[in-house]
């Protein structure tokens, strides 16, 4: 771009014999020059656009020098500091040949050319270029219109701000022309300088405006202080955060704007920044709304921004919500952790990579698999470890069917687990999975016992009912002799009594089960009278056998419900009666004893009846179990179950000894009342 113009200039031709209208001595010329300057100054004041003024200057110079063409270029510097000229105005008087002047054709407005070229460097240094080429040296291929060239520096305060190039004068250009035109060139330089300053100011104002917009509109609070901590400026966010108007902050020490306990912190911030240019910390301020706000404050040293002083910027960010959210998260994590730690349900979390990331203590306890045994396992590896906990041969004998959907393990101990799982999508769209293991062993066992009990109870009720139903049907449909009728009615009567007995004992048991002894009237009791009356109730008319009562006196007091103890004794004594089939005496002994460091009253009922096998003794306390299931011995099979329940509530013990053909001995241990235990 530069080279083209250089070429254009270098081929300039020497002038022909032409008339030059310029005469320095000419008063008319001086007066025209003055007029031009005055007119330009007037137009400048009126703020006539720059290009029109430039054009005017050129027109005046063309006329004063009798030149046919000219340009005005402004001296500029690029970012790298290289100087160049940029053509800002063009003018031509005799542009008749091609309708345009030489410069319009070869160096249009906006064209830049290098100021380091030797010729232009001359102008750039403030000197004049004059080329008055000899017409004889004219080259045939050259540009005849550029025979003479005058380059004039445009200066202001000694600084070259531009150049004016004039060509094709009617006579040779002279050095003194530059001196003559100096006032006009200086005026032009002053104008360029003024425009330039104006442009810089506008740019600076725009910059400032832009920065102020950013400064005031960012959500972070920004405070500027000097190195002593005196506030110089604050943005809107900072004003809001510190809840003080700007003028209440500017000129004051930042530390004094904060509560005294934060002064030291501010001081530390100032020192730290002074040492290594940066500091950050957290500051809590009590807001006027009564809530505490937490700020993340960082400070930065801004070197060289202000002449003769250094600025320190303080950036404030309100992190109250973040801190709150974080603390809520922490709390929630703790709560969740506690929940998982104490939950009886076993939990296994399989993370987004499909590996076990967490197991809770309940799972560890349930399966005997430690956290480190399974953490990092894939779901399949975990499954095979769980499957390995099951060994059919270790199953308890009463279990034969698999519960639907339930998981069984036999190690570390037998358990039936209900397994469920839940997948959930995490905020990042990955999927995690929680496996839950619930120990339902007890539920299953309770269910089984309940079903078994119901089925047994139904069976036991149906048996006497069959007699009642059957014999009454015969009575209704058959004509029977009176003795038969009587016999049938006796059976019905007996079996109805048995039904009532079963129902009563079932209700007793159900009540004890439900109330767990809460309806017992337990009191510290002397039991001798109870023993006597229990024996009296059992005496059977016509039975030859003797009931012997052996009481060690005085018996210690025990805490029991007398009516329930009576029920216990009646059941045991009646069993002794029933299973001795009319032979042998029955003895009831009562004595104080000590065992396991505790004091007890022992009640022992001994018969000389048929006795039991060990296998039978194992079942004695089961509901509906009968030593004789033939129906020949009256009873419901609930008596001993009741005895066991009541003794449990009394916190007592039962001991059973029996030999086939010799007899049975039932020993009850009742704990001596606490008061007495303490006395002794």
């Amino acid at each position, binding site marked *: 771009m530069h080279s083209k113009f250089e070429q254009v200039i270098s081929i300039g031709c020497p002038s022909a014999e032409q008339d030059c209208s310029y005469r320095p001595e000419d008063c008319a010329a001086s007066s025209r020059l003055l007029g031009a300057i005055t007119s330009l100054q007037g137009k400048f004041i009126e703020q006539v656009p720059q290009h029109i003024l430039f054009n005017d200057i050129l027109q005046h110079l063309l006329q004063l020098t009798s030149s046919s063409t000219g340009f005005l270029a402004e001296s500029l510097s690029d970012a790298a500091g290289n100087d160049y000229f940029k053509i800002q105005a063009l003018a031509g008087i005799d542009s008749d040949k091609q309708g345009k002047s030489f410069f319009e054709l070869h160096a249009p407005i906006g064209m830049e050319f290098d100021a380091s070229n030797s010729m232009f460097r001359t102008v750039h240094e403030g000197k004049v270029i004059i080329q008055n080429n000899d017409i004889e040296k004219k080259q045939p291929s050259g540009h005849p219109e550029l025979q003479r060239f005058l380059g004039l520096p445009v200066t202001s305060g000694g600084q070259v701000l531009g150049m004016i190039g004039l060509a094709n004068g009617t006579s040779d250009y002279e050095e003194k022309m530059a001196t003559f035109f100096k006032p006009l060139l200086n005026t032009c330089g002053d104008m360029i300088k003024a425009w330039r300053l104006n442009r810089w100011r506008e740019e600076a104002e725009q910059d400032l405006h832009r920065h102020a917009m950013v400064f005031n509109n960012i959500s972070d609070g920004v405070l500027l202080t000097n190195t002593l901590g005196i506030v110089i400026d604050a943005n809107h966010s900072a004003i809001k955060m510190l809840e003080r108007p700007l003028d209440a902050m500017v000129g004051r020490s930042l530390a004094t704007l904060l509560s005294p306990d934060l002064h030291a912190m501010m001081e530390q911030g100032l020192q730290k920044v002074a040492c290594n240019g940066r500091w950050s910390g957290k500051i809590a301020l009590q807001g006027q709304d009564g809530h505490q706000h937490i700020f993340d404050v960082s400070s930065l040293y801004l070197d060289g921004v202000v002449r003769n002083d250094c600025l320190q910027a303080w950036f404030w960010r309100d992190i109250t919500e973040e801190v709150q959210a974080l603390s809520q998260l922490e709390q929630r994590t703790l709560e969740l952790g506690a929940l998982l730690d104490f939950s009886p349900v076993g939990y296994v979390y399989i993370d987004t990579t499909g590996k076990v990331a967490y197991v809770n203590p309940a799972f560890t306890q349930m399966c005997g698999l430690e956290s480190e045994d399974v953490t990092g396992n894939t779901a399949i590896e975990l499954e095979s470890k769980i499957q390995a906990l099951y060994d059919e041969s270790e199953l308890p004998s009463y279990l034969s069917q698999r519960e639907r959907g339930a998981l069984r393990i036999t190690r570390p101990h037998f358990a039936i687990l209900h397994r469920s799982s839940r997948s959930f999508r995490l905020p990042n769209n990955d999927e995690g999975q929680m496996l839950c293991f619930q120990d339902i062993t007890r539920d299953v066992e309770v269910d089984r016992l309940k079903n078994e009990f119901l*089925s047994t109870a*139904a*069976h*036991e009720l*149906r*048996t006497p*009912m*069959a*007699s*009642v*139903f*059957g*014999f009454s*049907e*015969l009575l209704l*449909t*058959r004509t*029977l002799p009176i003795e*038969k009728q009587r016999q*049938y009615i006796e*059976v019905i009567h*007996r*079996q109805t009594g048995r039904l009532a007995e079963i129902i009563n004992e079932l209700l007793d048991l159900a009540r004890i089960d439900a109330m767990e002894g809460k309806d017992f009237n337990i009191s510290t009791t002397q039991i001798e009278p109870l023993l006597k009356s229990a024996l009296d109730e059992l005496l059977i008319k016509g039975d030859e056998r003797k009931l012997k009562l052996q009481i060690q006196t005085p018996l210690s007091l025990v805490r029991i419900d007398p009516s329930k103890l009576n029920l216990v004794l009646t059941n045991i004594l009646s069993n002794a009666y029933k299973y001795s089939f009319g032979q042998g005496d029955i003895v009831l002994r009562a004595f104080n004893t000590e065992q396991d460091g505790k004091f007890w009253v022992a009640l022992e009922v001994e018969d000389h009846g048929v006795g039991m096998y060990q296998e039978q003794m194992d079942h004695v306390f089961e509901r509906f179990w009968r030593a*004789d*299931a*033939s*129906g*020949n011995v009256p009873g419901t099979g609930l008596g001993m179950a009741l005895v066991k329940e009541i003794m449990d509530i009394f916190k007592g013990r039962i001991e059973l000894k029996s030999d086939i053909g010799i007899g049975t001995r039932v020993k009850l241990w009742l704990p001596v009342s606490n008061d007495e235990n303490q006395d002794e």
Partner: protein
Amino acid sequence: MNNHQILLVEDQEDIRMLVREVFETSTLNYTLHEAGDGIHALKLLETMTPSITILDVMLPGGITGHDLCQYIREKHHSSQDQPCIIMLTAKGQRADREKGLALGADHYLTKPFSPIGLIGLISDIIKAQVRMGN
């Protein structure tokens, strides 16, 4: 008319008496054998072949009505004339009934039962057996 051999295995004396009584009031030509437990029943089965066996399920002494039912079926598995087995039990749940029938019982009656109904059922069975040429 044939004398029909009938075996009643039942541990409850009252029920045995009920069955005995209802047979007595019927017009059937029969001989009723009674057993109060499984062991006694097995002994009887060695000496006689009842055309009808009435079995209680829950029996003392370890041998149940189910065991006896299986025993009779196995004993007669090659015979053309299958003895009729009636289960008469207080075990009334559906699973119990299914088990009884699966073990080879022809009829499953639950207690309480109608003695008149029972004798009606037995006379029907006898009539059918007579028709078959038994």
